[in-house]
C-alpha cells in the first residue's frame, strides 16, 4: 500500500443515487409482498372472522413477573438488536458502492477496503441474530397478549420476514466468502449482483420490521373503537408513520454504519506498525468519515418529516415529545448532534494537513468553528427551566429576557441549518485542498459559489427571525421549509459546481498516514455519539405512546405503564450505549484476530523440541 495521492474517495453522488435506488426497489418489493398476502388473506374466511376479535385488554395480574422490570429488560435487548441490526444492514450498502468504484476504476485498494468493511459486518451479524432471537423470546414471555395481537394483525407476514432473514444470511455469507473467488471479469458482475440482492433483502427486512414499530405508534387497518383488525396486511403495514420512519432509519443506519467502521479504521491506524498500514487505515478512516457525515447531512430533513407526521397524526404525541417532559431529551440530542458535527469537522480540518494545498483555506477554519460553537450554544439553550420564586422575580417572568427567544424552534432551526452549511463548507474546502482549478471560468464559479453561501445564510437567518418571531404560527412553521431548501440548494450547487470546476484540475500530492493521532479520537467520538443518540431518540419515539402498547387501541396495564424519570432514562440509555460499545470492541478484536497468523515455533526456542532433538 503506497502512501500517495491515489486514494480518491469522493463519490458522493453515486453513493446517494444507489442508496436511493435500493430503497425504491425495496419499497416496491414490500408492496408486492403485501399485495400477495392481501389476496390470500381475503379468501380466508377463518382469518376474516378472527380479525373481528377486539384488541386484548390484559390486566396487571395477566403480565408475567420474573422479578425484574420487564420493560427495562426488553428495552436493553431491543436496543442492542437495533444497534447491531442497523450496523449489519448499513455496511453492505456502502460496501457495494465502494466495490463498484473499485470495479470501474480497476483499483484493487477499493476492493480490499470494501472486503475489510464486510468483515466487521459479518462478525456483527451473528450477534444481531442472537439479540433478535432473545428479543422475540422475551416479548412472547413478558408481553404475551401484545404479541398475540401483533401476530393477529401481521399474520403470515412474520413468516415472510423469517424467510427473508434466511435469504439475507445466505446472501451475506456468499457475498463475503465468495469475494476473492468472484473478483474479476464476468464473475465480478455476479458478485456485484449478489451485493445488490443482499441490500435489497436487507432493506426489505428493515421496512418490514419498521411496520411493526409504526403500527404500535399509529395503528392502521384496525377498528379505532375496538382494535379489531379489519384491514388487509398492506393496510396494517402502511400506517402514516411507516415511510417517514423507513427513510429516517435508512439514512441514519448508513451514517451510523460509517461511523462504526471509521472507529475500526482509527483503531487499526493507532495500532499500525508501519507507514503502509498507517496510510491504508488513514484512507479507510477518511472514507468512513466521508460516508458517515455525508449521510448525516440529510438526516435532519428526514427527522423533520417524521416529527411533522407524528404531529399530523396526533398533536398530543407531538407536544409530549417536543413540548413536555421529553423535550429535555431533545436538549441532550442537541449536545450529541453538535458533538458529531464538531468531531466530523475537526477530523476534516486536521486531515487537510495531508495536502500542502490546504494552506490556502486554513484561514476559513476559525470562522467555521465560530459558527459551529455559536450554533451549539443556541441549540442547547432551553426555553425555560424550573426557577425559584426569587429567581422569577429577578428575571421578571418565566423566561430569560435575552436567552428566552433562543429557546424556541426558529432560533434552533437557524443554528441547525447554519451548522449543516458550515459542515458542508468544511467538506468542500477539504475536497479543494489537493486541487488547483484550471478552468477558464474559475472566477465566475468561485464568485457564484461564495454568493450562494452568503445569500443562503442570509435567507436562513431572515426566514427564522422574520417568520419565526414576527408573523403567525402557520408562516413560522412553513418558513422552515425555506431553510431546508436553502441548505439543500447550497449542497447541490456545491457538488455540481465543484464537479464542473474540477475538470482538468491539477492534483497536488496527498500524503496518507500524515495525520495526527488526535484526529483518530474524533473518529472514536462519532460512533459513541451516534450510539447514544440512537438510544436516546429511539426511546423518545417509542415513549410517546405513553400508557398504550398499541396507541389508542390496546392499553398497557403492566406495572411499567408510565414514563420513567429522566434520570432512569439517562441511565438506561447509557447502559445500552456502553454495552454496545463493549460488544463493538469485541468485534474489532475478533476482526483483528482473524487477520493474525502465528509464526511457526523455531526449534531453538521450544524447549520440548530442543530436548527431543538432543
Amino acid at each position: 500500500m503506497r502512501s500517495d495521492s491515489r486514494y480518491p474517495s469522493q463519490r458522493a453522488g453515486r453513493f446517494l443515487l444507489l442508496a436511493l435506488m435500493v430503497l425504491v426497489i425495496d419499497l416496491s418489493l414490500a408492496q408486492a409482498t403485501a399485495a400477495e398476502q392481501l389476496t390470500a388473506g381475503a379468501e380466508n374466511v377463518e382469518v376474516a372472522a378472527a380479525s373481528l376479535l377486539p384488541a386484548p385488554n390484559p390486566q396487571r395480574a395477566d403480565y408475567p413477573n420474573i422479578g425484574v422490570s420487564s420493560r427495562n429488560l426488553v428495552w436493553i435487548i431491543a436496543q442492542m438488536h437495533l444497534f447491531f441490526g442497523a450496523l449489519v444492514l448499513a455496511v453492505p450498502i456502502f460496501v457495494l458502492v465502494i466495490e463498484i468504484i473499485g470495479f470501474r476504476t480497476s483499483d484493487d485498494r477499493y476492493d480490499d477496503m470494501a472486503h475489510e468493511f464486510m468483515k466487521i459486518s459479518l462478525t456483527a451479524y451473528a450477534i444481531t441474530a442472537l439479540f433478535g432471537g432473545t428479543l422475540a423470546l422475551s416479548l412472547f414471555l413478558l408481553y404475551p397478549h401484545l404479541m398475540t395481537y401483533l401476530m393477529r394483525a401481521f399474520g403470515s407476514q412474520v413468516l415472510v420476514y423469517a424467510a427473508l432473514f434466511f435469504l439475507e444470511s445466505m446472501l451475506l455469507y456468499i457475498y463475503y466468502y465468495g469475494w476473492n473467488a468472484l473478483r474479476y471479469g464476468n464473475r465480478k458482475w455476479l458478485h456485484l449482483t449478489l451485493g445488490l440482492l443482499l441490500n435489497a433483502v436487507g432493506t426489505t427486512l428493515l421496512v418490514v420490521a419498521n411496520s411493526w414499530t409504526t403500527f404500535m405508534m399509529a395503528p392502521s387497518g384496525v377498528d379505532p373503537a375496538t382494535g379489531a383488525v379489519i384491514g388487509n396486511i398492506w393496510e396494517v403495514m402502511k400506517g402514516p408513520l411507516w415511510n417517514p420512519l423507513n427513510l429516517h432509519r435508512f439514512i441514519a443506519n448508513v451514517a451510523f454504519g460509517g461511523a462504526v467502521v471509521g472507529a475500526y479504521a482509527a483503531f487499526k491506524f493507532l495500532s499500525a506498525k508501519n507507514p503502509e498500514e498507517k496510510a491504508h487505515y488513514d484512507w479507510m478512516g477518511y472514507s468512513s468519515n466521508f460516508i458517515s457525515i455525508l449521510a448525516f447531512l440529510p438526516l435532519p430533513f428526514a427527522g423533520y418529516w417524521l416529527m411533522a407526521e407524528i404531529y399530523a397524526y396526533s398533536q398530543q404525541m407531538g407536544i409530549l415529545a417536543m413540548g413536555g417532559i421529553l423535550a429535555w431529551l431533545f436538549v441532550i440530542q442537541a449536545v450529541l448532534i453538535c458533538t458529531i458535527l464538531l468531531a466530523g469537522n475537526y477530523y476534516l480540518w486536521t486531515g487537510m494537513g495531508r495536502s500542502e494545498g490546504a494552506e490556502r483555506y486554513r484561514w476559513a477554519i476559525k470562522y467555521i468553528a465560530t459558527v459551529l460553537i455559536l450554533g451549539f450554544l443556541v441549540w442547547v439553550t432551553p426555553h425555560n427551566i424550573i426557577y425559584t420564586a426569587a429567581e422569577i422575580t429577578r428575571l421578571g417572568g418565566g423566561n430569560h429576557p435575552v436567552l428566552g427567544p433562543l429557546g424556541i424552534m426558529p432560533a434552533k432551526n437557524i443554528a441547525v441549518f447554519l451548522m449543516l452549511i458550515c459542515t458542508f463548507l468544511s467538506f468542500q474546502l477539504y475536497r479543494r485542498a489537493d486541487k488547483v482549478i484550471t478552468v477558464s471560468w474559475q472566477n465566475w464559479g468561485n464568485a457564484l459559489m461564495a454568493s450562494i453561501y452568503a445569500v443562503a445564510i442570509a435567507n436562513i437567518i431572515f426566514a427564522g427571525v422574520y417568520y419565526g418571531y414576527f408573523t403567525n404560527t402557520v408562516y413560522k412553521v412553513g418558513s422552515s421549509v425555506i431553510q431546508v431548501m436553502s441548505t439543500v440548494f447550497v449542497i447541490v450547487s456545491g457538488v455540481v459546481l465543484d464537479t464542473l470546476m474540477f475538470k482538468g484540475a491539477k492534483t497536488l500530492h496527498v500524503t496518507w498516514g500524515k495525520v495526527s493521532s488526535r484526529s483518530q479520537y474524533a473518529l472514536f467520538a462519532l460512533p459513541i455519539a451516534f450510539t447514544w443518540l440512537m438510544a436516546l431518540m429511539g426511546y423518545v419515539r417509542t415513549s410517546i405512546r405513553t400508557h398504550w402498547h398499541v396507541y389508542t387501541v390496546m392499553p398497557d396495564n403492566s406495572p411499567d405503564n408510565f414514563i420513567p424519570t429522566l434520570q432512569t432514562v439517562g441511565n438506561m440509555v447509557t447502559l445500552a450505549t456502553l454495552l454496545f460499545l463493549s460488544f463493538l470492541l469485541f468485534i474489532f478484536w475478533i476482526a483483528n484476530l482473524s487477520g493474525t497468523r502465528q509464526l511457526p515455533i523455531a526449534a531453538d526456542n521450544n524447549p520440548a523440541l530442543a530436548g527431543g532433538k538432543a
Partner: protein
Amino acid sequence: MGSRTDVGKSRRVMTWAIAISITLAAFYLLDQTVMSMQGLPLNWDLSPAQ
C-alpha cells in the same frame, strides 16, 4: 499598467455583482415558490399575503 489593473478590478467587481444578483434572484424565487406551494403566499416584499 495602471489602466490594465483598473480594468481587471472593474471586471472582478462586475463578476461579483452579477453573481450576487443571480443568487439573490434565485433565492427570492425559491422563497416565493416554497411558501406558495404550502398554501402560504407571500407579497412581493416577502411579507405574508394572508
